[in-house]
């Protein structure tokens, strides 16, 4: 079963002073308010964060519903924006694989792969023994996921009191936080070039195709950075 020691160690990562709870909480409050404004009820809003737990995907779903898109439109739009979770999962799970751990832990805990939990794990995994990393990860994921669900609830309740200026303030917190967190994790030539090229090519591809820009921009930027990094190391 899950080792309580490492589970709670992961869980308590959100209590630190520079915890991701603030940024995650702010943006999920905004999502909760947005859900109310587009006509979701409270249960549907909380249910949505519970099941999806990926902010850009929820935003895309809301936007597609506002313009009256079909279920197929929603699926495709969400899949395009959330397909980044695939390389994120593949670059995280091998660090936590251990033969003494049952597979269900990996199959279920992949639901926690989202920017906040992912960056915490990427920055901290070396301090945990390989065997216990998955339990630590489940703790981190449970904590960030719970914050997201609670913040959605709070946002829904507070929706009527949040004016446009507050919503704009909440909206900027998320990209600023994750941008700083990414700059903080830029330590090797390969990662540095991935981040810089991605930040340039993503918006550049937006001019060609708004839907495909993250997928194409990320794929091309990451591949160039990989090749440059491999050459640089040799």
């Amino acid at each position, binding site marked *: 079963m899950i080792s309580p020691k490492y589970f709670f160690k992961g869980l308590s990562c959100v209590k630190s002073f520079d915890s991701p709870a603030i940024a995650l909480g702010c943006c999920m409050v905004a999502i909760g308010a947005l859900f109310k404004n587009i006509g979701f009820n409270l249960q549907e809003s909380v249910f949505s964060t519970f099941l999806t737990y990926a902010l850009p995907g929820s935003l895309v779903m809301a936007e597609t519903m506002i313009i009256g898109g079909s279920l197929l439109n929603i699926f495709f739009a969400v899949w395009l924006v959330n397909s980044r979770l*695939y390389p994120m999962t593949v670059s995280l799970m*091998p660090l936590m694989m251990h033969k003494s751990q049952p597979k269900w832990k990996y199959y279920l805990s*992949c639901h926690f792969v989202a920017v906040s939990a992912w960056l915490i794990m990427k920055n901290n995994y070396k301090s945990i023994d390989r065997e216990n990393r998955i339990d630590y990860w489940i703790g981190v994921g449970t904590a960030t996921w719970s914050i997201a669900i609670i913040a959605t609830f709070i946002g829904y309740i507070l929706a009527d009191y949040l004016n446009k200026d507050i919503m704009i303030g909440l909206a900027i*917190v998320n990209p600023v936080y994750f941008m700083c967190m990414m700059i903080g994790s830029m330590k090797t030539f390969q990662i540095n070039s991935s981040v810089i090229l991605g930040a340039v090519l993503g918006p550049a591809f937006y001019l060609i195709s708004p839907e495909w820009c993250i997928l194409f921009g990320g794929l091309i930027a*990451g591949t160039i*950075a990989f090749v440059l990094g491999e050459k640089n190391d040799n």
Partner: protein
Amino acid sequence: MTTSVVLAILVTSLATFSSRFIGVITSEKIKENSKIFRWFNCLAYSTLAALIARVVIFPSGVLSEVDYLVRIIVIISSIIVFYLTKKNLVYPTVFSAIILALINSY
């Protein structure tokens, strides 16, 4: 209406979970020190950077009502605060919300 909201939520979560789940299946065959792992690592960081940069430069929702120049000033000054505070995450985050509100109210 209610059923369509529930269906939309289910479709969204399916589209999201599929990327995560296929990721786990792929991970079972990948070693931590292999080339392919390093490639995926680059892809993860680059797609994330692409997404964050897109949100700032071409935002949807309320951020799109903030002037382009204001967004750039807020982002650059927040990054400067991040370095000045020895890479603390809280100061630049709080700073960004306050300075955006200040600029917006003038």
